[in-house]
């Protein structure tokens, strides 16, 4: 499996060039360059988005779990949870959760394509990254439109 685009893979590659100092006092060691050094590209931005959306889903799933427990608990707790989810803030969070979920999903599909060993050409990986973002925004709107239509 190739990890050409992962930060750790890159850092490890850089580290192999660093020679260990031979029995001398520790001089400041060279550090591998980090985010602020690089020009922002689609693949870089989508790599970061993948982690951020994953972390957001981690927290957001607790919200949906709490809503389910409230539904299983009783009338007053359910009505409180349903009111909170139905408020403007609640709906914005749920919309954001939907986008994070679908973005993370399409980003995952992109990683599965790369895992198969294809899609590493410059134009392909840039297009895959663009598709991840545009696709997730479109899909979020479609899913909400269908769900709202069905209810």
């Amino acid at each position: 499996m190739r990890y050409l685009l992962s930060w750790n893979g890159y850092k490890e590659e850089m580290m192999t060039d660093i020679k260990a100092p031979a029995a001398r006092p520790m001089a400041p060691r060279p550090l591998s360059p980090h985010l602020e050094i690089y020009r922002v590209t689609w693949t870089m931005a989508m790599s970061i988005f993948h982690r951020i959306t994953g972390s957001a889903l981690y927290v957001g799933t607790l919200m949906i779990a709490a809503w389910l427990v409230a539904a299983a608990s009783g009338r007053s707790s359910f009505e409180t949870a349903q009111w909170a989810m139905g408020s403007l803030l609640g709906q914005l969070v749920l919309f954001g959760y939907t986008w994070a979920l679908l973005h993370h999903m399409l980003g995952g599909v992109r990683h599965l394509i790369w895992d198969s060993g294809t899609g590493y050409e410059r134009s392909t990986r840039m297009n895959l990254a663009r598709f991840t973002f545009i696709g997730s925004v479109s899909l979020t709107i479609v899913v909400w439109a269908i769900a709202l239509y069905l209810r």
Partner: protein
Amino acid sequence: MASDHVNQTMRTEMSRVKGLGAAKSGTEHFWQHRITAIANIPLAIAFIAIVISLQGKSREAVLHTLSQPLVAILMLLFVCSGLFHMRLGMQVIIEDYVHGEATKIAALIANTFFAILVGVMCVYALLRIGFGAI
């Protein structure tokens, strides 16, 4: 020659055959992450569509929908696969950014506890509703 190869490496033949590497767990984490990712593709779409469609509905309507076998099974499948995947993903993030050994172990344990807590919350609620115990 094969004997030259053996002399040049610190790795034993057994270690090479087992293929578990320095972390002693081989590619298990990687595969579990990929397989749950594939399962999550249809399940996440079903899950979020069900949750959105229940917004603003009365308690009776929500309980009625969530107690449909197909709905309950899809929700339960996503909770199991999704939270397993979520725990693996957060483990990678912790291993990347938390460098103190004690803090890292504490964070990894907290990660497991959190995933199991959220999982049990969802499974308990879905089963209680699904079995009509409300």
